[in-house]
């Protein structure tokens, strides 16, 4: 055994595939324990970002999720090349994450209630919304409309995908249009804003939930903070663009720690879309 200094953990004793350092409190967290804690630091409560599959598994009843449209993949409509081509960036992200794009949608049940759900994935190109993400959000809304059930969308995104240009910008209208149809049918849409929810994603479906529920300390904002700071002489207000800041300014209904999120959504859906009486099936749909 090598001689170790008594007062500082050596890097080798925390192999990175088994341990994670908390960005909030710098505590070393054992990965298996972190998973069981829903990827929330047990020391300081820092909410780690989670992939879309993990998010869905944490929210929905075990085994209830059926993914839809898993085969959607982006094209390269602009022939976009910066230091890398868009197809190269896509391929790298697909290899790194094992997923085809930055969103997953499908049907499942939450506390026994059937819902349509869509979750974005910051791990895939920063969760940026291009054609596929926009299509999945729209189809999730249409799926909810077709079955007369609520929609839950969990956002985690750096904004619109620049490599798709104005086609990415059009996804804002496309997703909002699908939500408008859901609204007109009297079906609830709950928007969960996770860290980060920014740019064109925030300025479209994420901000428009009948109920907006944010995770603690999530970064939620339109412009980049450095850009915002550059426009005023003073420092930015404390907690700028964090979930609690939005809550104080009236743009978020609830802040829910991840362990409570399922129950919070279930309680809200109980009121907005109570389950039909026994023998009728489906949820009540207001006329």
């Amino acid at each position, binding site marked *: 055994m090598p001689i170790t200094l008594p007062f500082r953990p050596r890097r080798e004793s925390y192999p990175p595939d088994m341990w994670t350092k908390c960005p909030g409190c710098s505590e070393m967290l054992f990965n298996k324990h972190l998973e069981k804690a829903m990827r929330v630091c047990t020391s300081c409560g820092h909410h780690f970002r989670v992939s879309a599959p993990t998010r869905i598994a944490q929210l929905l009843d075990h085994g209830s999720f*059926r*993914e839809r449209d898993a085969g959607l993949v982006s094209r390269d409509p602009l022939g976009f090349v910066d230091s890398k081509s868009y197809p190269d960036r896509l391929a790298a992200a697909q290899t790194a994450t094992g997923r085809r794009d930055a969103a997953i949608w499908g049907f499942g049940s939450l506390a026994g209630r059937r819902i349509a759900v869509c979750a974005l994935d910051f791990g895939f190109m920063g969760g940026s919304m291009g054609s596929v993400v926009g299509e999945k959000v729209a189809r999730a809304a249409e799926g909810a409309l077709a079955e007369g059930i609520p929609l839950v969308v969990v956002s985690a995104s750096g904004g619109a995908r620049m490599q798709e240009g*104005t086609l990415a910008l059009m996804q804002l209208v496309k997703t*909002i249009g699908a939500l408008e149809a859901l609204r007109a049918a009297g079906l609830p849409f709950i928007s969960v804003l996770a860290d980060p929810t920014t740019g064109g994603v925030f300025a479209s479906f994420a901000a428009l939930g009948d109920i907006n529920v944010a995770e603690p300390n999530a970064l939620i904002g339109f412009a980049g903070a450095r850009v915002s700071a550059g426009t005023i002489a003073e420092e930015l207000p404390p907690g700028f663009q964090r979930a609690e800041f939005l809550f104080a300014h009236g743009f978020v209904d609830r802040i829910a720690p991840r362990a409570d999120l399922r129950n919070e959504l279930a309680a809200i859906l109980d009121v907005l879309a109570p389950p039909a009486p026994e023998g009728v099936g489906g949820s009540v749909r207001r006329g």
Partner: protein
Amino acid sequence: MTTAPGTTTPAPPPGAPTTTAPMPTTPVPPSITPDADATANAAARDAVWARVLLARNARRPHTLQLVAGIADRFTELHGDRLFGDDGAIVGGVGAIDGRRVVIVGHQKGADTDENIRRNFGMGKPEGFRKAIRLFELADRFGIPVVTFVDTPGAYPGAEAEERGVAEAIARSIMVMCRIRVPIVTLITGEGGSGGALAIAAGDVVIALENAVYAVISPEGCASILWRTAEKAADAALAMRMTAADQLALGVIDQIIPEPGEGAHADPAETARRLRGVIVEQLDRLAALPADERVAARARRYRDFGAFDDVGVPEVPEPPERPGLADRLRRALEPMGTRLGNLGTREGRDEPPAREEV
């Protein structure tokens, strides 16, 4: 519009003109693919950048000047009934060639003082909420809407976040999706991302020849993807932000040629050409039944997207009643991560622990 106490006067957006830009004298070549040779690329890049500069030209006619040339009469309306009156977004009621209209548009300034008062045409939440007010007014009274888009983008300051700029933009788009009157959108200058789109979700979207439309400013795109704002011209080329490229992408429906060297050379003629197209579109849209028109608008935006479906088969439903083994497993296992056809190796499942956006 006065700036709120505690803030300084806003910095001009990137590319805001301080002097007039040189005018292109040769026609712009069509966009070319990145694998063409460097010389041709440089020429295309310069041509695109010339268009961007024209769209930003200080002498280019802005919304109120165009409206004066287009409308028979126009009464400007103010305020969002909530917070204030944004000078960057103007609107009102009037008539164009006898057709009643509600007009909403971004307004840049003609000189530095006016630019400060109008925040260089960068809308704030109260501006987008004024737009919402006017769209709902139009819907209530059955009056078609005409919007004029010319903005570097929404104002990115801290006060905008405090007053909910993202929600204001999103709701403005939602109201445009909802209202049942015709909406004609003209992109006359800069179509700056979400701040533009908030009033640009029309039944038909028409651009002046030298207008540009982008999801992010070329300077912003260059800073992020090329790591320096100095590559803005490369970003502008890559993003295909010229009117011609936007037409090819289907994002805009029609281009209106500009007189001579550009709209600034003959604002009166530019207004005349705009009026002709606006009236044509208003009449065409008014002839459609409202249900059909609203459905067509929804279809227009629903169809945007470039993707393929490699066709992954759906996972079949499991048997209805779980066996004892399943029930035991479920009872004993905390927070299972099994997800059927979603499963990937645990180690690859999570985004990296680094927390930077």
